[in-house]
């Protein structure tokens, strides 16, 4: 049993319930003992750091301080969410590299009678722990239902392998960890050069056309390379590709159907765990085809929510080659 302090982050309890459920389901068979930080708070996501530096880092460092207080001999903090992982790692790194900054953060933490010694904890992403601490051999031993014939896209998103302060990943642009894991699960890994491209992040809120184009690129390539499903390690990526796929289709007049699952859900499937326990059915773009492909009984379908009206175009337009008027113009050229 390997002991880890778990920092779940907000999305694991809300939008990425499937991630949390499937993580809980697979942690036992692979011997991953997770202890959640008591009284943790938001990591600050991506926005807060742009607004005010010290409070933002104090906010995230509070979790590190709590973790080291509750560590009980464990040194490793594991974050399943990419943004949480990056923020924790970033806070630790900046406090370590800039002692003056570290002191100012600790001054802020002192208000809550907390303190954190930079470098005293190791911060890992869940995938990193599974590949390098638990090991693929342990994963392989648990595979009872190989994902044979399932074409899976390994999509990591931008935040996990970069900037990689502690050199944990095989490469910053083309890391192969997720590919290796999927191969171990028996899946057919799709060659997917966009594996570390951005999913659009919060652009869905600021400039939907920009976000739609970014989502479109990812889905279009997966579709072109005949993938059955995409898999990711990040709640944000999952949200954008799953939750905004309908709006994106509407915006471009396309008809993509590309389910996206968390890698832990696929692990659970391969381990023979019931789909319901793994949070199947919570996704908006149905992944029934995945279950069908490997011959698993799908849980009863919930009736689909009525489609939302697309938002009006607003905010900063990005000169994207494929926003709607240009698509139309392009179509004309092509049909000519």
């Amino acid at each position, binding site marked *: 049993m390997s002991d880890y302090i778990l920092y779940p982050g907000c999305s694991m309890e809300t939008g990425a319930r499937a991630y949390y459920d499937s993580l809980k389901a697979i942690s036992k068979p692979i011997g991953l003992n997770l202890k959640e930080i008591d009284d943790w708070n938001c990591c600050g996501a991506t926005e807060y750091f742009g607004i005010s530096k010290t409070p933002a880092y104090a906010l995230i460092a509070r979790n590190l301080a709590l973790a080291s207080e509750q560590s009980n001999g464990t040194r490793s903090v594991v974050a399943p969410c990419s943004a949480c992982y990056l923020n924790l790692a970033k806070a630790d790194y900046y406090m370590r590299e800039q002692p003056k900054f570290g002191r100012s953060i600790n001054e802020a933490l002192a208000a809550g009678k907390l303190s954190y010694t930079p470098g005293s904890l190791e911060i890992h992403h869940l995938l990193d722990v599974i590949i390098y601490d638990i090991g693929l051999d342990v994963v392989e031993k648990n595979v009872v239902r190989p994902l044979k014939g399932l074409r899976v896209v390994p999509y990591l998103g931008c935040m996990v392998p970069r900037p990689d302060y502690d050199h944990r990943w095989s490469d910053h*642009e083309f890391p192969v960890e997720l590919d290796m894991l999927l191969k171990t699960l028996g899946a057919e890994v799709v060659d997917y*050069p*966009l594996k570390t491209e951005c999913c659009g992040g919060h652009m869905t809120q600021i400039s939907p056309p920009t976000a739609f184009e970014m989502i479109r690129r990812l889905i279009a*390539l997966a579709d072109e390379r005949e993938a059955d499903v995409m898999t990711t390690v990040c709640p944000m990526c999952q949200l954008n590709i799953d939750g905004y796929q309908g709006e994106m289709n509407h915006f471009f007049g396309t008809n993509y159907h590309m389910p996206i699952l968390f890698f832990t859900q696929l692990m659970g499937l391969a381990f023979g765990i019931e789909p319901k326990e793994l949070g199947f059915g919570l996704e908006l773009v149905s992944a029934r085809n995945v279950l069908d492909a490997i011959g698993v009984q799908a849980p009863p379908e919930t009736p689909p929510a009525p489609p939302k009206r697309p938002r009006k175009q607003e905010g900063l337009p990005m000169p994207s080659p*494929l926003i709607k008027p240009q698509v139309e113009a*392009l179509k004309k*050229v092509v049909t000519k």
Partner: protein
Amino acid sequence: MTANLIENTSPADGRERIGVYVCHCGTNIAGVVDVVQVADWAAKQLKHRGVVIAREYKFMCSSLGQELIEKDIKELGLNRVIVAACSPHLHEKTFRTACANAGLNPFLCEMVSIREQVSWVHTDKAAATAKAKAMISGGVERVRHQVPLEPMTVPIDPTTLVVGGGIAGIQSALEIADAGFHVYLVEREPSIGGHMAQFDKTFPTLDCSACILTPKMFSVGSHPNITLLTWSEVEKVEGYVGNFTVTIRKKARKIDEELCTGCGICQEKCPKKVIDNVYEAGLGYRKAVYTPFPQAIPNRPVVDVDNCTYYEKGTCKACEIFCPTKAIVFDQQDKILNVKVGNIILATGYELFDARRMPNYGYGRLPNVFTSLEIERLTNAAGPTNGNIVLRDGKTTPKAVGIIHCVGSRDKNFNNYCSVICCMQSLKFAHIIHERTGATIYNFYIDIRAAFKDYDEFYQRVLEEGTLFVRGKVAEVSDVPRTESEKGKLIIQVEDTLVGKQRRIPVDMVVLSAGLEPRKDTREVAKTFGISCSVNGWFIEKHPKLDPIATMTEGIFIAGCAQGPKDIPASVAQGAAAAARVLSRIEQKQMALEPVRASVIEEKCSGCRICNGLCPFNAITFHEDRMVTEINPALCQGCGTCVAACPAGAITGTGFSNDQIMAQIEGLLMLNVDQEPVAA
């Protein structure tokens, strides 16, 4: 040197007559250190330590300054000299020669570095002056214990070993052989020629590479003074300058070189095709018995034991059956040769940066991404496509080609250094590909470095030809289209830093101008020859500006890319320069070695062997029978590492004995002088 003087100069007998000379070095020293005060102080305060005279002078190293010392030695009967000036690296030889001219043993002259260690590193004048005094005091105490030394002379064997048969090694070997001395040229591959033999054209003149190289290769092959050992590697080097014994493994060619006529029938008949990863850079094929290229020197094939059907299955022997002179010898064994040489030139060359290490550029993943060496073969008329520039499918001519500079060079993640040749090589590719295919050529560069004769003119010529230059480091080469026009193309994503804009440029072919890297086994080679490598792995020269050919180990010289990335003219120049250095050594017939050496006092040596692994020059041997360590005085360079490491104090160095060091420390602490307050 008179017997009288030697008698007078036994260590610190109170009869020392020391002269102290403080140099202004213009304002280099005098600007920070009060040299007049220092000289006055030395004359007065160090009088009881044997200082007879202390002078300051504007430039001690000038002939007038040297005459000053010589005159004092003769007139005042000085038997020790202290020159407080620059670092001994610079002028120790100058002042030692001056002393020798005046009849004083040159090793009784000691330099105190008050420029590099005082005036250049301090701004507080009072503190700097006090430090200069302390250092001179240390020097005086040290020189009192110095003994006259005689340099060792060693004979120089006139035979030379050149390692590496690329253009640098070829040049070295020919220069020495033409001067009438024997050379062993050792090459790892079956033929000499090196990387230059793979190239099509050379920049900036666009000479055919083979046309200018093969005459030189032929001269090497037929030269009576050159013993050419290809398909061979140096295994061991013993001895010291003038007297090296080198063990060379001559790998079994499986061919009797005497009987073979180089007719080529064996290659024709061999049924086994093998991808040629060396000469053809993986783009072409060769047979399992092969000469790398038609002009190979020597024109004798090699049987590739790893791929030959006979060694795999025990049958075939097609080459043996068809060989008209019965020259194939399947059971031939490696031969070990021992040769004696006086000097060694290392010209072991470079390796191309492995572009797979940058997966974002797609080499190895995207078929139409090529490395520079592959393009050299592709453009070469003798190459796998007979000079047709085509995509990896073997037939499509590219319409747009992107050439990416600085792949693996000037990149914090890989190599910080500039690989020197890539800019010019990329311009050459731009010219050749445009000329032969009419394709649109893009060059993606960080800076264009077209220094040296006629290089910039070539750049301007390529500009005029319509090659497009985009300044910016390419982010990625992608096969994922975003628009219809990008479909089926390789898209180069780059920030055009001159416009401040992201660009996506679709092309058919991408050329990665990969940087130069030291060979993988450079560190082992350096260890074999007793020299060292820089952080980046290139061989370290004795002095980066004034002695780029020699190494810190006497008798070992370096030339060509093994010392650092460089182009053909620079490699040739270095090869010739190394040969000139060796020839001057040979002509002198013997060589005086610096007498500053470490030696072991056998009675004190406990045989702990701590020093054994520390010597950077392989000068230490351990005698198992007597359980003592011995230092070879000819190999020892007097670095002092072993002296400091010996826990029993059994190793002592001439010129840096324990007595001297302790006395110097006492002097530095001014224990023998009236204490003066030193500014904080």
